[in-house]
């Protein structure tokens, strides 16, 4: 059954508790001032208002989320039905202490240790053609971060078709050991960026390595930051 996380009181309590745990280390004003010193007051203001949905919290999504949290992009909507698994550790931002836990919850915990003042919304659901409209309606910027080619195609088609005014960043082609130089960002339209090398498919013997996957995720995060700069 497809139950939105916000309807589950346990999830709301957990994130509030985590937020309380980490905001004792540094005040929001101090943190925001430090960030503004790094990237300027204007961009800092934009990051405070920006809302980004991250579809898939694996090698791409977890790394995109960390990059955006570090920039102080304040409203993150994390969507993934899956739990942390031993096969994740070679490239995803999870820790062995989180084995078996929902990725949404685990990643939220991690992000709050980076920027305790994030407003995180989670949905521990599988994204389908039927629920996309309801799930993604609140964010102007959508990040496609799935691992399966068919899911990528499905999400890109539905977002471009149903939400032509939103901004979509997707990634395809990051498997194997070829040079990271081949990971690029292509601006397909003003509203659609495609990152990756476009061709390196996950296949037998051609695995996923953190450097290449993180590079693709970095391209996505940077495209998102450019979009935020442009539209907020």
């Amino acid at each position, binding site marked *: 059954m497809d139950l939105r996380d916000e309807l589950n009181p346990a999830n709301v309590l957990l994130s509030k508790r985590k937020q309380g745990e980490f905001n004792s280390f540094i005040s929001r004003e101090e943190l925001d001032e430090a960030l503004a010193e790094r990237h300027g007051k204007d961009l800092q203001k934009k990051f405070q208002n920006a809302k980004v949905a991250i579809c898939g919290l694996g090698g791409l999504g977890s790394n995109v989320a960390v990059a955006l949290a570090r920039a102080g992009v304040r409203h993150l909507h994390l969507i993934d039905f899956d739990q942390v698994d031993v096969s994740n550790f070679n490239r995803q931002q999870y820790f062995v202490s989180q084995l078996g836990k929902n990725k949404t919850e685990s990643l939220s915990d991690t992000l709050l240790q980076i920027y305790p003042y994030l407003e995180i919304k989670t949905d521990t659901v599988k994204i389908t053609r039927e629920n996309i409209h309801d799930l993604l309606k609140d964010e102007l910027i959508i990040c496609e971060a799935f691992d399966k080619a068919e899911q*990528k195609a499905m999400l890109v*088609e539905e977002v471009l078709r149903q939400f032509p005014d939103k901004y979509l960043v997707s990634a395809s082609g990051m498997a194997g050991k070829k040079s990271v130089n081949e990971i690029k960002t292509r601006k397909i339209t003003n509203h659609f960026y495609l990152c990756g090398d476009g061709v390196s498919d996950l296949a037998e013997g051609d695995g996923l390595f953190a450097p290449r996957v993180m590079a693709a995720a970095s391209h996505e995060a940077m495209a998102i930051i450019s979009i935020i700069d442009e539209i907020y």
Partner: protein
Amino acid sequence: MVTINGKKYDFSNITIYRVLEKLNYNIERVVVEKNENIVPKANYDEVSIQDGDVLEVISFVGGG
């Protein structure tokens, strides 16, 4: 002639489904735009392309 990803082909009066088949695309892994409008996958075998149409086919691969 139709233009597909910038190249010209002598196709006409065939469905998008057939075009993708001819060009060896994996139907489940593509997004198709015809004259700047997304064609939903469910319509690939109903929508046909005519002379002058411009198709963009984006292919996705696995891994992430």
